[in-house]
């Protein structure tokens, strides 16, 4: 039994969740909510970071909060988001991951 499997066994027996584990936890399995703006989010935000940053920072920011974050990413971090798309991305984040959205809904 490999070390990792041993660890997995211990964790599973301690917390019995289910007999079968899903394969591969990595960012390619991250799914954000469908909606206008998702394409721009996937194309731009994921150049530098995995999209769990968005989920992790939800749902507590209002639209102004997300706007501040997106502007920082563009102006400071160099996200190559065309000016026209900034509002689209902000609207997407506020609507699906804002403080008035349902928590972490896919």
């Amino acid at each position, binding site marked *: 039994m490999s070390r990792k499997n041993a660890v997995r066994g211990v964790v599973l027996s301690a917390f019995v969740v289910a007999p079968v584990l899903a394969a591969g936890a990595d960012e390619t399995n991250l799914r954000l909510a469908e909606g206008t703006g998702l394409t721009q989010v996937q194309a731009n935000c994921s150049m530098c970071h995995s999209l769990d940053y968005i989920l992790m*920072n939800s749902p507590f920011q209002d639209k102004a909060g997300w706007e501040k974050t997106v502007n920082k990413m563009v102006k400071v971090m160099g996200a190559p988001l065309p000016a026209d798309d900034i509002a689209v991305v902000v609207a997407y984040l506020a609507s699906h991951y804002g403080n008035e959205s349902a928590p972490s809904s896919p």
Partner: protein
Amino acid sequence: MRGAHGGNIDRRKFILGSTSALTGGLLLPGIVGSAAAQDLPAGAVASGILDALPGKQPLIKRSFRPPNYETPVSFYRHAFTPNDAFYVRWHTGVPEIARSDWRLRVSGPGVKSEREFTYDTLRRKFKMTEVAAVNQCSGNRRGLFSPHVPGVQWGYGAMGNAVWRGVRLKDVLEDAGLAASALEVVGNGADAPTLTGPDFIKSLPMWKALDPDTLIAFEMNGEPLPKWNGFPARLVAPGWTATYWIKAVADLTVTDKPFDGFWMKTAYRVPKGMFGASGFESQDTEQNSPITAIKVNSLVVDPAPGAVLERGKRIDVLGVAWDGGSGIRSVEVSLDGGSTWRDAKLDRDLGRYSWRQWRYSIRPEQAGAMTLMARARARDGSTQAETLVHNPAGYHHNVVQKVDYHVA
């Protein structure tokens, strides 16, 4: 050197499920989290799965890329946090550097002559020394802020305690020779931003750089640094938050002016005066100061919050307490909501920058809910906050913890 981590993603093993919303995997009802689960943003709870980076045990994943992974609190039962369970925090991709390729350059207007060292020459030329010290991310416990603030939503585990071994930064700087104008030592690691964003670079004031406990460390807990924690060498600035502990350090520039990079001038700042003097005057402004020394704090490790305790049975509560280097004077425990406090027993002193483990024996007599509070006091007289000192970046969360148990 960037994005090295990206190539490793497929080698990682899925250890426990995520939420069905994320991966079609398994729901983890609060166990991953820690004590903090109910206080973290819902999205952070949902995405905070257990996942193992290569060479690491399963840790709480906050973000895949850059890798930000939190140590589950149960590992703090060890006086020193195992290297393979030590938390991971990067702003950018993780550099892959062969020991033989690594160089440390010392330059700038504040040195008399430039230097370049290899791994072997640095270790041969200077005396090796070690220090036990807590390494704590500035944003540890940010996820517990109310109201929440954006950033990596850490629970309690963006910290660890280790014995760091290496050469004194002071000895290396003095070998190059310091000019009278030397003001700050600017450390840059081999990591680089993905796009045009600012490189992660941090400076130290001369007094901190010349402190005999400030090291260029090659090892933690007797082993080479894992690449996740800064291989081949990192700065160790005991008592100060981990933002200054530059990983995979490659360049040291001694300046005669305050370094004004983004990560000094704009980020890692606290409102002026909110947490006392920074000790870093060349970086203070009218409005704010750099975050510097760790605030006194404590954490209950065992039994885990939410545990069911057996009525009438004596049990040892285990915790840790630490500060920015004055050392821990006492830890007090209250079982009545803070009306009365009694001293916990401190374990052996492992050094003033190390955390101090503590124990408190309880025998719950009444069935039902029970709340335990723990409060550390440092030798400099400071103690933990009773209520959160809210600040925009979510730093210095050291509110007295309230841990709920159930007695049955």
